[in-house]
């Protein structure tokens, strides 16, 4: 139909990377919780949504005080959203997971779904069900390509998304690899009971996992909140589903897997829209998931699970 246009391809690649990076940020929360307690936190999408709302509250609040310097707004929104989301993440673990730990694995799963419905409706009642919008904070960008052909735009916002994602991921990887708490996390992931016997406060480690996952979801919430400028109480569901898919695709339980899965999912979606049809975006993305799981049941970077007794 159309000749291959490298600038168009580059544009779609950038679009895919942008959305993929944020999938990856949310996916971390799923993968960390799974890695440590072997359960899926279904309320995680809602935590992302709360992060986005918190960012909106912080941004409009700062605007009311006349703060216009972008780095201050960004960092302020980030800190506020991370604080609120982490608190909610911690509370979810305390309310929906800890009291049920040790029982049937399905029970906390259901209580997490309940938590998800509760949080969604809680936000809906307090913030209203209609879309909330904030003005653009960061506009403009770089343009490449000939003036008469297709021009690729790389917006400053996209750059901010990439940089923040890379920095957050890097910091987390370093933290898990080097710090005392990180070592405890890895120990608990390997064998919860043994770690407990060796004097690791596993409850604290598990709480910490939920908090870190929630904080990264809040980072994604702030970034996407600024990128799209719109939110509503229902966004957590689709975002959570996509991020969960990314985590499974990359190999649930594996941090680099979540990142890789997010990026692959984002790029697949963008490319399907670009060279095929937008309505097949999800069909192709989920088809890919099924294919990969057929050949690698543990995901791309996942390790075969040894049944813990």
């Amino acid at each position, binding site marked *: 139909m159309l000749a291959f246009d490298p600038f168009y391809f580059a544009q*779609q690649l950038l*679009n895919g990377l*942008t959305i993929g990076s944020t999938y990856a940020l949310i996916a971390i929360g799923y993968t960390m919780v799974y890695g440590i307690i072997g359960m899926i936190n279904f309320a995680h999408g809602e935590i992302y949504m709360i992060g986005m709302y918190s960012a909106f509250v912080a941004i409009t609040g700062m605007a009311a005080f006349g703060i216009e310097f972008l780095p201050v707004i960004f960092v302020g929104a980030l800190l506020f959203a991370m604080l609120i989301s982490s608190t909610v993440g911690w509370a979810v673990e305390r309310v929906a997971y800890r009291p049920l730990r040790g029982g049937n694995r399905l029970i906390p799963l259901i209580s997490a779904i309940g938590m998800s419905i509760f949080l969604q409706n809680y936000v809906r009642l307090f913030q209203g*069900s209609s*879309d909330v919008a904030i003005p653009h904070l960061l506009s403009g960008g770089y343009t490449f390509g000939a003036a008469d052909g297709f021009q690729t735009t790389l917006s400053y916002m996209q750059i901010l998304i990439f940089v923040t994602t890379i920095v957050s991921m890097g910091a987390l990887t370093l933290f898990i690899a080097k710090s005392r708490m990180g070592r405890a996390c890895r120990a608990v992931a390997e064998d919860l009971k043994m770690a407990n016997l060796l004097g690791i406060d596993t409850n604290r480690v598990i709480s910490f996992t939920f908090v870190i996952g929630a904080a990264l979801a809040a980072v994604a919430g702030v970034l996407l909140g600024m990128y799209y400028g*719109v939110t509503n109480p229902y966004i957590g569901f689709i975002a959570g589903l996509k991020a969960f898919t990314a985590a499974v695709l990359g190999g649930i339980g594996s941090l680099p897997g979540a990142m890789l899965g997010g990026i692959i999912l984002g790029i697949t979606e963008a490319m399907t829209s670009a060279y095929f*049809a*937008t*309505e097949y*975006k999800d069909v192709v993305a989920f088809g890919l998931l099924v294919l990969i799981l057929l050949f690698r049941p543990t995901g791309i970077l996942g390790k075969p699970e040894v049944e813990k007794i």
Partner: protein
Amino acid sequence: MKKTFARTLLSVSTSVMLMGATAITHADTIQIAIAGPVTGPVAQYGDMQVIGAKMAVEQINKAGGVNGDTLEAVIMDDACDPKQAVAVANKVVNEGISFVVGHLCSSSTQPASDVYEDEGILMITPASTSPAITERGYKMIFRTIGLDSDQGPTAAKYIASKVKPKKVAVLHDKQQYGEGIASSVKKTLEENGINVVMFEGITAGDKDFSAIIAKMKQAGVDFVYYGGYHPELGLILRQSRQKGFNAQFMGPEGVGNKDLSAIAGEASEGLLVTLPPAFDLRPENKSLVEAFKAKGEDPSGAFVMTSYAAVKVMADAIKATGTTDTEKLQQYIHTHSFNTPMGDISFKENGDLKGFEFDIYTWHADGSKTPVQK
């Protein structure tokens, strides 16, 4: 034998009691269910329906009610969810309500109307524009709004005769309403020799439309028609502006809402929208418009007057026939004309309005609109 007698007696007495109960509730109040999204992403449209219908109920009651009885509005929330709409329909049946103004979303009206038709409940939707709703030969189902199949051609003819774009993209949200209207626009555009280069569906609830925007930009699209609701179109407009994609956009009445401007901001300026005629601007409705404004309500919403009209049609029919028997009422409504804020309206055999036309408006960034010459 004795047992059977006892049972018969029991059932007779129960039915007498039930009849008594219905007779009592119907003696002084006639309940009208207002069914639509009170919550959910399109709740704004539900608000339009509620304020329009409630105003009609209030004014009719103030003017002495219907043959001495008063009307009562019962608000029911379907959240624009087909499953919940059926639950609402069942609730209407359970509570013995015989009149429904609603539902709003076509995808909700469709399944709910099956229940109403079966149970002999009179339903008038002030907002659902899907042609399929009145294609089933139902007799209890009416609407005080036009059809997608009218709205689409109105839009497409305007595009073909006035805008004359070179390459058109038609997008939709893959839902009954959005895809229906988008298909009809595409069909009419092609009949008029306009080049439709893209026809694609996005997913309702998605937030990122950068891929499809880049694709339209690549294809050199200069006009985009979107079939769907405002949350998605608002984001498409906003992201198009950011990505330097400056085609003219157009949408159906599902996007014509002040929230569109809140989402898209400056990018909503100049959008073309097909809407039911601005009944609030009719000189005959001056006092009614003031009554809305006195309550702090906005009479300019697309479904406010159509909802008012739906209640008025029911009330007038009950008044004229002196009965709440919906079978007689539907016959009366099919064969008579009603004076409403929409003007004099009458219905076709299938329950659609006779001679309803959509108007075209230019939307502004502040949420206001100005009519465009067709």
